[in-house]
């Protein structure tokens, strides 16, 4: 593989999720949800951030995406990124459901355009571009549980090729009660105890050059579909080689354990094999399950690298205490044991 080894940087990240919004408070005092299977995001007071007509016009997913994007831009001092790349598993599912519901129940005669206009997956990415007047590259990945990794890899490639210098990368998924009920029925969500459904709005600014307050470096992204054990090991080797990093240097591996056995069992068999003797970290016990939850996992790892500290509550092994002086975190995610992804993040 001739994939280049240039590092790219995560300059800033802002989130709205089931944890306190627009802050990293979860590092010190995470919110806990006990046995609830379905948790909506903790929304900030939008009145402080939007004009009343703007707030009314936009659905939840769009408001959250716009606010986290604006704050990531402000935090990084980049008002107009060269690219806007968004990941979303389900897109604007609220508006999609409303339009579909009206179509099926009331027939084809009396439908209104507003729900349809904000129903496409790329409504999020284009709204951000319209808001910031970004005429650059604008794309949206909608590939279930690996949407975020697709967006991150695309951005990584373009930054390391020098095609762009800055990019706003987002992970955005809302979860309606109706769709939660359907996804529970097919076993993807909602089998409490152990795991809950969350919501995601994450915006990160990435750049080819670091800033003084950059969170961390992104060293590479690898994805595999239905890999054999050997193909997965090769992907890991490619990732580490590309970054000139040795497995011994990796401090810990962040994984997508959610508390749902259908999801967790594969980690239990793959992790000891792929990452022997490595400490495992998790994030879905704090942020919940969602198609774009991996975005929050990468964000959580980035915050740990920035602060040089992994809090005890992220360790899968509950005997572990907090760890300091962390240099490299590997991120591993699988979706339904089909899609596997590996990401390497390093301290600046």
């Amino acid at each position, binding site marked *: 593989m001739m*994939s280049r080894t240039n590092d790219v940087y995560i300059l800033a990240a802002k989130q709205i999720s089931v944890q306190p919004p627009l802050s990293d408070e979860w590092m010190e005092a995470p919110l806990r949800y006990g046995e609830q299977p379905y948790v909506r995001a903790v929304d900030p007071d939008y009145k402080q951030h939007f004009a009343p007509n703007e707030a009314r016009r936009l659905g939840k997913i769009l408001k959250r995406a716009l606010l986290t994007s604006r704050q990531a831009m402000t935090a990084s001092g980049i008002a107009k990124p060269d690219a806007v790349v968004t990941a979303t598993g389900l897109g604007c599912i609220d508006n999609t459901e409303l339009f579909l519901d009206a179509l099926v129940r009331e027939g*084809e*005669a009396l439908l209104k355009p507003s729900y349809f*206009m904000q129903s496409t997956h790329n409504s999020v990415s284009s709204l951000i*571009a*319209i808001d910031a007047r970004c*005429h650059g590259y604008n794309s949206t990945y909608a*590939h279930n549980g690996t949407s975020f990794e697709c967006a991150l890899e695309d951005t990584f490639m373009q930054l390391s090729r020098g095609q762009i210098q800055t990019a706003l990368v987002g992970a955005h998924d809302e979860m309606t009660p109706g769709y939660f009920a359907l*996804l529970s029925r097919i076993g993807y969500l909602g089998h409490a105890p152990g795991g809950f459904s969350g919501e995601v709005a994450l915006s990160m600014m990435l750049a080819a050059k670091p800033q003084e307050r950059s969170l961390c470096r992104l060293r590479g992204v690898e994805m*595999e579909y239905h890999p054999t054990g050997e193909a997965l090991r090769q992907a890991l080797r490619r990732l580490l080689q590309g970054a000139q990093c040795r497995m011994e240097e990796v401090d810990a591996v962040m994984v997508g354990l959610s508390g749902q056995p259908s999801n967790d069992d594969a980690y239990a068999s793959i992790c000891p094999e792929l990452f022997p003797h490595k400490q495992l970290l998790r994030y879905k016990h704090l942020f919940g399950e969602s198609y774009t939850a991996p975005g929050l996992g990468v964000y959580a790892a980035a915050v740990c690298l920035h602060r040089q500290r992994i809090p005890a509550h992220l360790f899968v092994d509950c005997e572990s205490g907090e760890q300091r002086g962390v240099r490299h975190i590997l991120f591993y995610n699988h979706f339904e044991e089909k899609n596997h992804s590996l990401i390497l993040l390093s301290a600046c």
Partner: protein
Amino acid sequence: MPRKAAITGIGVVSALGAGREPTLAALREGRTGIAPVRYLKTSHTEFLVGEVKLSDEEMTRALRIPESQATTRTSLMGMVAVREALAHARLQRKSGLRIALVSGTTVGGMDKSEQYYLDFLAGDTQNAYISTHSCGACTEMIADYFGIFSRVQTISTACSSAANAIMLGAMLVEEGRVDVAVAGGSECLTKFHLNGFNTLMILDRGQCKPFDARRAGLNLGEGAAYLVLEAEDALGGRGVEPLCRISGYANTCDAYHQTASSPNGDGAYLSMAKALEAAQLTPQDISYINAHGTGTENNDLSEGQAIQRLFCGGIPPVSSTKSFTGHATSAAGGVEAVISTLALQHSFIPANLNFAQPMPELSFTPAAGGDSPAPLRHVLSNSFGFGGNDTSLIFSKI
């Protein structure tokens, strides 16, 4: 020169038929595939549509898929088109190559969701179709039918989805992340889309009339189309002949409105200009423009203005083949990439059907079509989507 992606196979199913041969024949004979509604169960029979003239059952049988297996029309059409593309590129099942599938779609499995929505709410008799709803699920059904893909990705940028998938596929090949990328898109006609576009009042009841002063909207279509892309410098090893290369591409954002284009076509201008720059070509090098040309008031004005501005030194033949296929939304960029490849290979300009009256705002009129006096060298294909998502691809003779 940096590594470029060559096209070694194409596969298509659209209103013009299944396969590159019927597509080429219809284009050369000026025969449209747009017709009254026949397959979609809608009350809006007043609109003409570009349906694929195959039922789900017919495709299921032709693909030898068990009838009990839950599928969607989007994935069935995708399988038909990918199958042709792989065969065309002579890609065997056990090639030992690292192959990616990159597919664009937006409604995904909505055909089944709108059919079974009330069943979903009432009970669990149609649970299989809950899992087939998402865009990613539709792509994976296509991938799993072949079982040769080691990477699978879905792009969803509305009507530019397939063009963006081709762009990503080319990038993956150029970067050496994969040996082969099969890239394009698939999208079926749904009541969801037909009604959605109807609420925006941009559907023509007659045949669409791109770049015509009397244009009254688009005809929705459907289809799937994929290109097999591989590094030009690696072709020798496989002994396949390239059909052409992707010499440049760009995606930009109009950043003007969620569902309308800016009057000056700023996004469209930028995407064409940047694609030319990436291909190291000048506007004069382009032999033919396969326009987005939906036939809506807004698009054709905006795109036309952008073409006029960029190609001020002389406008090459321009046509919209949506007058043949209808607007296949997320698949359109794939269908038009196949048409652009066929035009290059056979040196002909596809016609812009139904044109009679020039647009007063434009200095050019669309091409009548026919054999090109000189061989085509470079074809520019535009695909624009909601949210001002503008993509231009340039296909070049090798």
